[in-house]
């Protein structure tokens, strides 16, 4: 599904990703771990199409298409979803209007008619239950005045509404208490299927107790330095990242 090959990315002439390669197939969950400042969030942003990054080398193919050639909204329409580390507050745009626009733009891009309003509402209610959102959520402005936990739950809720093929969760666990973490993880697990894939970016092993990954990758200094199964995460929790520090220096 996703094939990243020797990706080099700079921001303001500073190289952040230094030859990153990663293969993700449908049905898989990949965890990417690593200390602060190693380029984990950059990877998420680059895949989602945020502006300001310069791709200096390498390639990213998504279902065989050159993802880097597409604008952010085109990537989303093709099924790439980024759950933001810091979800943005959009005053004045209600969650309902925001998602209606998102769902219908995606449908339009796929040559489908807009979703009938009653069907849309039904779907919203269903997915809200999944992440235990309160009813007034529909009419509230996107993320405005939301607690940290509510913002993250909203990301998962949006993911549930848009049903992406590839979801990248950028530190979705940061700032969550144990109940919120359980709700978020539960939402993700219910959405897992043989047709979609997840990249879970995290600092801590904690989230991976709930969302069990098929692969764990260690990212260090702009590339993936080690890959393994879920046991690698436990190992990292115990030993930290010290060995990689020595390895790259």
């Amino acid at each position: 599904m996703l094939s990243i090959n020797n990706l080099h990315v700079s921001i303001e002439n500073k190289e952040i990703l230094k030859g990153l390669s990663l293969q993700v197939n449908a049905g898989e969950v990949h965890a990417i771990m690593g200390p602060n400042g190693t380029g984990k969030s950059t990877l998420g942003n680059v895949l989602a199409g945020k502006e300001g990054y310069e791709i200096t080398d390498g390639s990213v193919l998504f279902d065989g298409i050159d993802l880097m050639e597409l604008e952010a909204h085109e990537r989303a329409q093709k099924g790439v979803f980024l759950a933001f580390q810091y979800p943005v507050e959009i005053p004045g745009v209600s969650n309902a209007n925001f998602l209606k626009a998102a769902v219908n733009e995606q449908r339009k891009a796929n040559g489908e008619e807009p979703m009938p309003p009653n069907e849309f509402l039904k779907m919203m209610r269903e997915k809200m239950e999944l992440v235990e959102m309160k009813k007034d959520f529909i009419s509230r402005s996107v993320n405005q005045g939301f607690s940290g936990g509510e913002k993250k739950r909203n990301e998962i809720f949006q993911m549930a509404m848009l049903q992406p093929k590839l979801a990248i969760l950028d530190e979705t666990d940061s700032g969550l208490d144990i109940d919120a973490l359980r709700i978020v993880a539960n939402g993700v697990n219910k959405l897992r299927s043989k047709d979609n894939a997840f990249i879970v970016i995290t600092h801590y092993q904690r989230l991976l107790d709930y969302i069990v990954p098929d692969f764990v990758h260690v990212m260090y200094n702009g590339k993936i330095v080690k890959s393994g199964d879920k046991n690698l995460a436990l190992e990292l929790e115990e030993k930290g990242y010290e060995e990689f520090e020595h390895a790259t220096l």
Partner: protein
Amino acid sequence: MTQQLENILPILQDEHQKQALQNAMNIGVPSMKNEEWKYTYFQKIWQQDFNPILSSATFDFNDIKTFIDNNATSSNRLVFVNGQFQHELSNLQNHPAINFWNAKNTASTNSNDFLLELNNALSTDGIFLEIGNNVVVDDLIEIFYLHSIAAPFINIKNKIKIGKNAVVKFAEQFINYDEQTAYYNTVTTLEVAESANIEWNKIQDGGNNFYITDNMHIEQATKSICAVNTFSFSGGITRNVLTYDVNGERSESHMNGLSLLLNNEHVDNRTLVNHNVANCESYELYKNILGGTSTGVFNGKIIVAQAAQKTNAFQSNRTILVSNDATINTKPQLEIFADDVKCSHGATSSQIEDSELFYLQARGIGKETARGLLVFAFGEEVVEKINHQPLKEKVEKRVAEILKIEL
């Protein structure tokens, strides 16, 4: 048009009107050298050939009736065509608690304002109504200003008295029936008695050959609430002068404005709040969305008299510039003579936040739609001030249409 005024002077019958016209000519046409007119080029209106309307003109009744039916959001309406009040098209005259008084106002005022004097001299008609004590008018009272003749210069003077405890909402519709160029110089005075609650909406959307100079003066008595919401969506030059005299304690004054201009329009909003007594609150929120080569002007003055202790006055003017060639000139002015007051003012001008744009794009919403949604949301804060659902929806629809987004 100065020549036209000189021609009219000898034929004016009424002495007050004659005097007012003479006053106007003595004061002279506003110039940009005048601080009050620094950013608005009045000559752009004055140099055109508008025809002062002094008598009634014929029009296609059915056509105009259909137009109003299609544009109305309420059953209560007051209609002017070519500067004349139209009884047949209006329907409030029989309301038991609404009193229409004389049809002509020839009272003289001696202002030093060119446009006020011009209005005194040339106003053909106006709404002169009195709403009784304790009257609650459920539906909106909609006022339509229409014209059927080419390039008219129309002066209308409204005088409205609101009784104690009355609750009334108005909407003034400056819209264009046939896309003709026109210049309206309107003057409205509104007296709001004790504990009355008034909302006044102005919808200014007559196309870019439409020119408006509007002057509204409000006097508020004790515990009254009065809100004026001004929406400007098109117009060659639109200038709104809004003055509040807050004369009764524990009253609330609200002023809100949204100028959404994407071509070459010019809108000048000027507010003055005179806090003359203690314990009152005023809230002011003017927003501009400016694109193309449009220009916005905002001048917000608040004067807190020495007696007006415990005044709370808030003013905010926020602008989003959506093009490189749009301009905003904004000037808050606070003059505070009392020592125990809370006053604040702020003016911002910005562009759309990249982070917000990316968030919407990351959900599959195209850049243009995303911009539209964000700009719509910025304006929605003002649109939400309309407390009449059909009018609010109509304004929302119009905003969406201008921004090319689907609701």
